[in-house]
């Protein structure tokens, strides 16, 4: 992220629109990769590694390290010059629309802006029993070294766990006066995740008066980026999302006058 920003801050001279990897000299294109091939460690395997490197655009490529891992595998480290050019004009990135906050800042902004706890209800809906996603975000144990939302003093978290029926989720969200509903879907056979989420959003729109529907957030490894509108949800989070990203988004979307300026958009 920081690197990208750094690049943009450089003077945009015409020549700077094309970049190559930097080893020790501008324009040398030098990169380093490591991989394992399912081959015994011998000359043939080294040749195979070189062929792969060339196909990846490394030319010249140099196998600097080859080591057997057991009788059937070989690990390689390859250095070489990449013959690909990066055209910055063709780089499109989706910027995060909210600032990343620390737990302290999240708590502070909720305290100041909302003057009550922000209530989050989470569940895995349908037949999905994989609570790993919702637990990573909500449980105090958290994910990737970050604590889950349960840890945030200014958040009230109700984790309904796995295989929650949509009507129950709506009822529990109403009872808890949820500000946001988090739903995770891991199982994606026959697009069941899409079906479940559409069913859920419909149920919420039916049960709540217009404009009062809690913020609907879904997460899972197989949701398409940018398909919020189609699913009728406010935000989709993908693989690798950490609790603080979700917390920061909730503050951004729900807390009036949060320092991230933009208010919740109607969807």
């Amino acid at each position, binding site marked *: 992220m920081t690197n990208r920003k750094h690049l943009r801050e450089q003077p945009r001279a015409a020549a700077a629109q094309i970049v190559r990897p930097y080893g020790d000299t501008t324009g040398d294109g030098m990169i380093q990769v*490591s991989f*394992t091939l399912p081959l015994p460690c011998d000359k043939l395997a080294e040749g195979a590694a070189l062929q792969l490197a060339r196909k990846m655009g490394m030319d010249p490529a140099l196998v600097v390290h080859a080591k057997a891992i057991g009788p059937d*595998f070989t*690990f390689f480290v390859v250095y070489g010059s990449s013959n690909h050019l990066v055209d910055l004009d063709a780089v499109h990135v989706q910027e995060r629309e909210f600032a990343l906050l620390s737990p302290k800042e999240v708590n502070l902004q909720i305290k100041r802006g909302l003057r009550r706890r922000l209530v989050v209800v989470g569940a895995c809906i349908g037949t999905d029993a*994989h*609570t*790993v996603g919702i637990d990573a975000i909500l449980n*105090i*144990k958290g994910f990737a070294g970050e604590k889950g939302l349960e840890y945030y003093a200014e958040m009230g978290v109700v984790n309904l766990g796995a295989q929650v029926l949509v009507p129950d989720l709506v009822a529990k969200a109403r009872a808890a006066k949820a500000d946001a509903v988090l739903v995770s879907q891991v199982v994606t056979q026959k697009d069941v995740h899409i079906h479940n989420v559409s069913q859920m959003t419909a149920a919420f729109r039916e049960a709540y008066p217009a404009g009062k529907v809690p913020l609907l957030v879904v997460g899972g490894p197989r949701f398409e980026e940018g398909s919020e509108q189609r699913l009728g949800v406010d935000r989709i989070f993908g693989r690798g999302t950490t609790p603080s990203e979700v917390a920061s988004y909730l503050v951004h979307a729900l807390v009036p006058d949060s320092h991230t300026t933009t208010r919740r958009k109607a969807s």
Partner: protein
Amino acid sequence: MPSSPLIHLDAGQVRAARRLARQAGEPVVRLATTQTTVSVERATLRLAGLRGADHEGQPWVNHLVDAVRAQVGLQDGVTTPVFDALRRRAAPDLITLAQASASDSVTFTMPEGKAAQAAQRAARAAVAVGIRTIDRQRATRERLIRRHGDPAQTPWIYLIVATGDIDEDIPQAQAAARAGADVIAVIRSTGQSLLDYVPEGATHEGFAGTYATQENFRLMRAALDETSREVGRYIRLTNYASGLCMPEIAALAGLERLDMMLNDSMYGILFRDINPIRTFVDQRFSRQIHARAGIIINTGEDNYLTTADAVEAAHTVTVSQLLNEYFAKEAGLADWQLGLGHAFEINPAIPDSFRLELAHALLARTLFPDAPLKWMPPTKHMTGDVFRGYLLDGFFNLAGTLTGQGILLVGMMTEAVVTPFLSDRDLALQNVRYVLDAAGGLREDFHPPRNGVIQTRARAVLAEAVELLERITTDQGRAGAERGRADAAYPPLLAAIADGTFGLMKRPPDRGKGLDGVVLKADGYDNPATTLLETGATR
């Protein structure tokens, strides 16, 4: 193991720490002995030989315990009414009885007098068969260790496999052993800790891990026995006795000769929101089985440091180790069976972070000189910069050997990035081997000065731990009583857990998962497994 301690702790303070841990633990044990749980009763039936499940995967032990509970209750134990029914010829054997009970065609009654004594004798004879199997498995392990030998070095090298499919796990585990692993841990499928039954058979569809089942245990142990012969050292197998089925998993581990089990006194309460009383009752039974089976337990103190700061919360690790030690010894485990946990989780950006890690590791080493401590690698500060991660793992390995840790869980540079590649595991083992070969003997030359940073820090953490234990045992009980709160009736440790003393989570004793499976024992309660485990009898 250590000849003379590398750091000096105040003997009075060490005694105080142990006394306070006992004071905190004793009332909890007293409470735990007045209760039983559905899982303890199911474990007892498993020891009596009841296996298998219906076509939907619901185990017969669940059917039988549920039926007895619905008809006569569990307050007297499940075995007396069950073996009474067998004596009355309601069914020829346990499995037929369980099948009949599932279709509601058995009437259970609570026998009295001679009939009760006869049922209890029959139950004891049946459960004793399972206990003797555990005894035999322990003897087999000891024989295999004599034949193949223990690892040449300490710490023992502990590696995780987790594919979700037992058929994939087996070749991976065997490859890991050939590459140098001494202990193989099979991680369980996500969510198994919250299942109130043990899945059945060989499984192939776990999520981020493989289900713990009796058949999976048997298959993996058999495969590692083969590999032990091949590599000339006994490869140990580890799984998880935690969650709602802790006692049953412990029983299955004993029956199938697993060698180590993760089994923490408070992990399920704090991190899985399992009811505290359920946890302490289940845990005592499971530890009694581990003691009998010669299984080394691994406790989960590393988890505290993944949620709290590793410097600020260092003393909570020590407190938890002391409590785990008390509960373990009370349940009959010996020092050599206590793989007390701790972790290398201090933020590497703070000055002297490595010295502080050494101080904390040496404190554990000195406080528990005869326990094979379980040393856990960095996870929290693994950033995705795999190169820096590899360096950090090297320092973790160095701290492990320098401070005489017993079991070293191999850190992966791709921690928190991807499921480790084959090459990540190989690089990680090279890292461990290099450090152990290069610096394995460095401990001899390592004498941190008495008033240096390391020793001073170790003593300060111990002092904080004693302070926290004092607060738990005295203030907590008094404060609860003064406020006239419901949990004033509970032991102070439970009140402290309810108040969020550990891991920042508030877990009151009247809430949490599995509470409805806790049953107060009646005067006539009988559990032959407990009797056999507590007396050491074999019949």
